[in-house]
């Protein structure tokens, strides 16, 4: 496996060369929130816009043809990258929209005819999630339960930050219609046992929904990229902006057979088969789920981001991130008063390291780090219930990526020590 030449990679990311707050070199450790974009992605968007821009799937002119090809080629590329067929990949604005799409489609199924019955929910049915979910994979399910009368249940989290599977047989039962969970926690870094959960869900006939926002961009250590087909999940979502791509584009993966049977969420232009004043029928997937004008340049940019990731190799990326994670866990672990929230080894764990500092509020830690040029996220990271589980209001979260040097984590440690000194703890 070729290691990543970080110095060379960094040259592709203009933003990493800038300084912040009094000429401090930028140490960007917030890729879990949004990643930076390489020139290759910007160039792809620019080239598309300058040379091929047109509406897709309509128009008989040459630009329309080229735009459609660019849009669909990017789809095929992204699909192959995650072990899917092109018609299993739906473009959306972000992963949140993807979960909502499934939840609303299921809500629509609950009030429509027998053809969509497998997606229908009602009183007595259950949706199972976990306590470590991002709000995006929690709130839409709460809402769906409210609309349909179904019941929400959830897996707890152990003190170490692993999923507590001890009551899996009581939680996932014949009543379970959906099992929705994150591949990798955006706070703890924990990589969840997808196979165990998928097997259990399929035993009881439940649909699985995987939040892959924090796994697709990074790969999973010891494997190459994330392969939805191999994982056996029914649905999955991820966001472009967390994987070197543009904002405004995300992906919903759904097994062909399911997307073909699922009712639409947003309706209108581009997603129809036939429209009469009295009613309409719908296009086959993925078009059925892409109503209205889509984010074409962004989709093309995401395709270029996939090319970039493939060029470096997901195995090499995962290995590089494992080294960064090990350095973070070790360095933070050595600072008295710092508590890591989540697994303390790199075993089944990705490059997300959250922590607290005794006596210094995460916001204040973040402010001191910012004065050192270090960009981290502070707060509950859209996983408020998980923080409640650990009895803390917030954490500081460092999320390195393929373009971070090992030396950069030292600046983080220096900043944390400075925060302790500044607040005299």
């Amino acid at each position, binding site marked *: 496996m070729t290691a990543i030449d970080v110095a060379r990679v960094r040259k592709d990311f203009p933003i990493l060369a800038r300084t912040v707050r009094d000429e401090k070199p930028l140490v960007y450790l917030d890729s879990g929130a949004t990643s930076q974009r390489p020139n290759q992605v910007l160039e792809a968007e620019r080239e598309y816009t300058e040379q091929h821009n047109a509406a897709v799937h309509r128009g008989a002119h040459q630009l329309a043809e080229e735009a459609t090809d660019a849009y669909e080629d990017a789809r095929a590329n992204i699909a192959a990258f995650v072990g899917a067929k092109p018609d299993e990949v739906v473009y959306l604005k972000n992963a949140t929209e993807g979960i909502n799409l499934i939840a609303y489609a299921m809500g629509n199924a609950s009030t429509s005819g027998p053809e969509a019955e497998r997606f229908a929910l009602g009183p007595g049915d259950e949706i199972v999630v976990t306590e470590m979910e991002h709000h995006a994979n929690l709130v839409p399910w709460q809402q769906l339960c409210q609309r349909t009368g179904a019941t929400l249940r959830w897996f707890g989290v152990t003190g170490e930050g692993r999923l507590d599977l001890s009551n899996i047989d009581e939680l996932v039962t014949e009543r379970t219609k959906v099992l929705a969970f994150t591949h990798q926690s955006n706070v703890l870094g924990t990589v969840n046992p997808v196979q165990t959960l998928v097997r259990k869900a399929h035993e009881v006939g439940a649909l699985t929904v995987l939040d892959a926002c924090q796994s697709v961009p990074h790969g999973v250590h010891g494997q190459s990229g994330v392969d939805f087909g191999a994982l056996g999940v029914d649905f999955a979502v991820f966001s472009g902006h967390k994987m070197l791509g543009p904002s405004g584009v995300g992906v919903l993966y759904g097994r062909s057979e399911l997307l073909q049977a699922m009712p639409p969420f947003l309706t209108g232009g581009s997603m129809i088969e036939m429209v009469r004043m009295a009613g309409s029928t719908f296009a086959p997937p993925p078009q059925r789920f892409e109503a209205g004008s889509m984010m074409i340049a962004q989709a093309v940019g995401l395709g270029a981001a996939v090319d970039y990731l493939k060029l470096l190799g997901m195995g090499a990326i995962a290995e590089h991130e494992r080294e960064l994670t090990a350095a973070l866990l070790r360095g933070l672990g050595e600072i008295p008063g710092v508590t890591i929230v989540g697994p303390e080894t790199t075993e089944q764990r990705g490059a997300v390291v959250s922590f607290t500092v005794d006596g210094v509020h995460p916001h*204040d830690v973040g402010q001191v780090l910012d*004065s050192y040029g270090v960009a981290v996220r*502070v*707060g509950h990271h859209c996983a408020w219930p998980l923080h409640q589980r650990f009895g803390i*209001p917030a954490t500081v979260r460092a999320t390195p990526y393929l373009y971070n040097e090992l030396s950069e984590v030292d600046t983080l440690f220096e900043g944390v020590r400075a925060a302790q000194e500044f607040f005299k703890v």
Partner: protein
Amino acid sequence: MQLDSMYQEIILDHYKHPHARGLREPFDGESFQVNPTCGDEITLRVRLDGEQVADVSYDGQGCSISQAAVSVLTDLVIGRPAKDALATMDAFVELMQGRGKVEPDEDVLEDAIAFAGVAKYPARVKCALLGWMAFKDALVKANAVDAEK
């Protein structure tokens, strides 16, 4: 150094040694406020004596800026007419939303002028205002002021 412009000594003092902290009885209005981006929260109570703010008591968790701001708030409003307290609040809100371009009036804001540096950091403005939002809401609950005002 930039940090010192945000974390003035006055702010750190109030953070380490908060004034009027703790929830007290009796009270006429109570408000619970959260900052949904960071999870900080405060419960704040107001006791009135006619037009006067007789006491403000509070409990909660938050960063140095939010905790110091509410401590300063108690200094500024306890023992003063509710109407005047809200005028002070207006001056403070104006300062905080001024992106560092508003010159604070020390006669009105007293220790709160120390927050002028915080106004340059838009992400922290909400922290400084959390306690004040709770104060205004508690006054509304106590029927001391009109909710529209």
